[in-house]
């Protein structure tokens, strides 16, 4: 049949219907006239004609079906009916829609993150061909760290495995924009950098090996700073007071790494080619066609394995170079938490679906009459199943739409999470993700619509057996909900306890009321640090202020091996490796780090004075356990430095790790680094004060990366906190859903079996027996659920093991209390309806039907 004709007819159906009505009216008129002509009276003729004609509506309907898109019309009708039904039971509908909305929303939001960081790292083209090469030195717990120029050159030489290799190092620039100093995050990159990532310039060109002092702009910087002006090529950009020639602009979709606004050409000084020296380079490579990541890694390993470690000075260090897919570099430690969250969101969605299925089942039971009547007047079973599915699909679709709105909100929240990982800023909902969410909602709709539909089919096929059919659905339902809730609750409990354990760790200094910020030292202005110190101290709002390189929790520790004078490193000694801080004398006071012994650094420790240092208690205990360290000499940065004092131990990078030994130098004696941190203790917000002091000291210096110390510490806990709380929310919701769902299902069974209970009681069953029978059934199913949940949680342990802190993966107390908690709630959910069953009055129950 010609579909187009149907569609046309369907669209013009109003006109077609009135035509048909007119045709029929005429037909009847002619019939009547014929009868009159044959000798009937007018009234008689009308009656006979009407009789002969039969039921007009029935055949108008039939004619109509010819031009209707029948299935579509049916579906539309079902949809209307479903809509009316949904509105007639607003509470049930709202519960179903909200449940689905939450499940779909959470899933969609998390999948959008997965998509951005895991499946398609930040929009890189053929990301599966891209790898990162990182160094490991097991002996000092270095893993996934940057390489030195040596490894870069070595990997560049492996042309049998890699078609392009590039190195990149971070670079902070101060640019002059409209007379104001602005800090610009950039990357210095080797010539092949853009070739590795397979991008072409939007404008101009990328680097050649001959390029010195050339710059490529990111698309966003080009638009923001130059308004997308095409004549920008060849112009100069002033960076750190020097002119760099703009040679190209990167395309808009290339944002690797996301923070970079400009790329400059990397110049590797010949002096940098020493293994383990100046390890600042991220090395990225493109695999040659047909080479797998594993083969490339093997190639690199064989090379490193062939090196003479003794000659390299790395014997027994556990030194190696690891090759990983670039997605590892992008996600890092986010990978596992993300999969866990995704699984948790799926559990919530499935629990939600099971609940809605339970609700619909309850409703279907109340509609048996309606269904029976419809079947008896000729509706086909398929038609009714279709209608039930349309009803649940409608709920699913509405829930899906609400869920996508929720996901939108969720993604906005995710991009604002206080995490160190920059990549999350790039997460957004695109069409594919929205489609995923909506399909998920529809599948859920089908899924929970199937339960009542199947029940209907089964009942209609074997109505005599209805009473004796096994109630497997209810048992599976209870078990599944308990399993999901228990697995989530137990996992969450482990993570929350770890979080609290970490949060209660004291870093060794007073983090409250501390503000930190950074500046880049101006060239040709050696007096700048002293003027800055003076300006800060002169400010009445400042309680105390210091300069430091680095500052704790800023993600840039200085770590190095050290030597102790007159001592040989022996096998079995703790590794001579620690952190260094270069600080002004006020640092201890400002941070409230106690001076335990000896003297503080002083202003008299100038560049020309003898080199001195402080050590922390950890270093003192580890390396000078039975002697006074004061007066001993240690070599770490610069030269042999005399230890003049011992200070309290501080955790400077993460709260979780035990601290490393720390050496404090006087900043005046170790002015090696271009950036300095400012630490200010003040009762009022210190931002304006710091800016003012820096401007006062040198107006061309830009202040960047300002944050309170508490914010920085929170950031280091960010992932742990976010994961624990999100899981707590998911776990709480799935628990709530489980309780509500189980209550509803048991209550439904009780309602369904009222008569049976009445009969039993009339035959002498005690209320206690009834209660025990219902509660027992629920609890048995719940116990099975707990067992399944335990297995699921045990499986999930592998994924969260790295997130646990001061708690063992199978912590018995946590598991038992989570299990008892879930059981109590289950008991409550089963108890109330079961008690109602035990209080049924047999007389009433039997009169009921």
């Amino acid at each position, binding site marked *: 049949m010609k579909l187009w004709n149907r569609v046309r*007819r369907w669209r013009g159906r109003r006109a077609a219907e009135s035509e048909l009505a007119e045709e*029929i009216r005429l037909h009847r008129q002619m019939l009547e006239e014929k009868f009159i002509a044959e000798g009937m009276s007018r009234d008689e003729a009308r009656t006979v004609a009407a009789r002969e004609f*039969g039921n007009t509506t029935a055949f108008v309907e039939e*004619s109509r079906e010819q*031009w209707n898109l029948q299935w579509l019309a049916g579906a539309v009708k079902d949809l209307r009916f479903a809509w009316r039904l949904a509105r007639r039971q607003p509470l049930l509908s709202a519960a179903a829609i909200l449940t689905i909305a939450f499940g779909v929303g959470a899933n969609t939001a998390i999948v959008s993150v997965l998509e951005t960081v895991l499946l398609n790292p930040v929009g890189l083209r053929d990301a599966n061909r891209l790898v990162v090469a990182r160094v490991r030195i097991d002996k000092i717990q270095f893993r996934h760290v940057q390489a030195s120029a040596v490894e870069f050159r070595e990997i560049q030489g492996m042309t049998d495995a890699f078609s392009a290799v590039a190195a990149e190092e971070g670079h902070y620039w101060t640019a002059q924009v409209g007379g104001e100093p602005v800090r610009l995050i950039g990357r210095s990159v080797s010539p092949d950098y853009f070739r590795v990532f397979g991008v072409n310039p939007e404008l101009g060109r990328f680097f050649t090996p001959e390029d010195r002092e050339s710059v490529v702009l990111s698309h966003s910087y080009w638009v923001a700073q130059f308004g997308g002006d095409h004549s920008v090529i060849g112009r100069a950009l002033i960076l750190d007071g020097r002119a760099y020639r703009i040679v190209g602009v990167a395309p808009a979709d290339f944002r690797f790494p996301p923070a970079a606004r400009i790329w400059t050409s990397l110049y590797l000084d010949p002096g940098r080619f020493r293994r383990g020296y100046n390890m600042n380079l991220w090395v990225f490579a493109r695999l040659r066609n047909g080479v797998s990541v594993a083969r490339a890694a093997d190639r690199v390993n064989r090379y490193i394995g062939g090196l003479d470690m003794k000659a390299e000075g790395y014997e027994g260090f556990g030194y190696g170079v690891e090759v990983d897919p670039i997605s590892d570099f992008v996600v890092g430690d986010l990978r596992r938490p993300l999969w866990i969250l995704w699984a948790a969101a799926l559990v919530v969605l499935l629990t939600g679906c099971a609940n809605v299925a339970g609700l619909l089942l309850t409703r279907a039971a109340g509609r048996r009459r309606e269904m029976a009547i419809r079947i008896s007047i000729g509706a086909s079973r398929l038609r009714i199943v279709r209608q039930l599915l349309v009803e649940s699909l409608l709920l699913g679709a509405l829930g899906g739409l609400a869920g996508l709105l929720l996901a939108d909100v969720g993604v906005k929240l995710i991009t604002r999470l206080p995490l160190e990982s920059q990549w999350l800023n790039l997460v957004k909902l695109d069409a594919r993700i929205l489609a995923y969410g909506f399909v998920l909602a529809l599948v859920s709709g089908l899924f929970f619509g199937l339960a009542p539909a199947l029940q209907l089919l089964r009942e209609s096929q074997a109505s005599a057996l209805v009473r004796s059919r096994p109630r497997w659905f209810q048992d599976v339902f209870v078990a599944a909900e308990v399993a999901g809730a228990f697995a989530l609750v137990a996992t969450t409990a482990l993570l929350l306890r770890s979080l609290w354990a970490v949060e209660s760790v004291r870093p060794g200094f007073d983090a409250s009321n501390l503000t930190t910020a950074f500046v880049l030292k101006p060239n040709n202005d050696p007096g700048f640090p002293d003027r800055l110190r003076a300006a800060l101290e002169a400010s009445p709002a400042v309680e105390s202020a210091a300069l430091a390189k680095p500052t704790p929790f800023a993600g840039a520790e200085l770590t190095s091996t050290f030597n102790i004078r007159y001592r040989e490193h022996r096998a079995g000694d703790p590794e001579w490796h620690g952190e260094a801080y270069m600080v002004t004398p006020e640092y201890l006071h400002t941070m409230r780090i106690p001076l335990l012994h000896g003297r503080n650094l002083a202003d008299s420790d100038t560049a020309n004075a003898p080199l001195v240092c402080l050590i922390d208690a950890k270093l003192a205990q580890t390396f000078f356990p039975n002697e006074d360290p004061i007066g001993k000499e240690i070599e770490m940065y610069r030269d042999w430095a005399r230890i003049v004092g011992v200070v309290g131990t501080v955790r400077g990078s993460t709260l979780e790790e035990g601290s490393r030994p720390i050496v404090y130098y006087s900043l005046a004696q170790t002015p090696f680094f271009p950036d300095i941190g400012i630490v200010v203790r003040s009762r009022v917000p210190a931002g304006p004060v710091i800016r003012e002091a820096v401007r006062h000291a040198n107006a061309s210096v830009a202040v960047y990366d300002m944050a309170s110390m508490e914010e920085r510490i929170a950031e280091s806990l960010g992932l742990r906190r976010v994961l624990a709380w999100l899981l707590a929310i998911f776990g709480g919701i799935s628990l709530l859903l489980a309780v509500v769902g189980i209550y509803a299902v048991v209550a439904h069974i009780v309602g369904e079996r009222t008569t049976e209970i009445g009969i039993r009681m009339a035959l002498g069953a005690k209320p206690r027996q009834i209660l025990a029978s219902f509660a027992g059934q629920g609890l048995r199913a719940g116990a099975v659920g707990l067992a399944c949940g335990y297995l699921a949680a045990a499986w999930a342990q592998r994924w969260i093991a790295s997130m646990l802190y001061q708690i063992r993966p199978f912590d018995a107390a946590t598991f038992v209390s989570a299990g008892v908690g879930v059981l109590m709630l289950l008991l409550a959910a089963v108890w109330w309806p079961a008690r109602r069953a035990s209080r049924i009055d047999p007389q009433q129950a039997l009169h009921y039907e």
Partner: protein
Amino acid sequence: MEAPELLPGTLDMLVLKTLTRGPNHGYGIAQHIRRVSREALRIGEGSLYPALQRLLLKEWVSAQWDMTETNRKARFYRITAVGRRQLASEVKSFNFMVAAIGHVMESS
């Protein structure tokens, strides 16, 4: 004898056959079939109109509003070229079937 039930699928054929005599409206078609079959076949209006709609959709007939001989506005159906071809093939298979049924009934 009661008017026999129409064999399924034959109504379309009867309508098409009627229309080969010229355009006609619903009433006219019903009356014609009744008259020609000597009152043996009574086309229920209840099945005539759905059938006409079906034929329209298949483009075996076309329809147009026109004046009847008694000056009433009525919808006239006209058989199309496709309809004629369809009729020919239906008549053929119908005859074949009638013959086949005849053979079966006359055996024994």
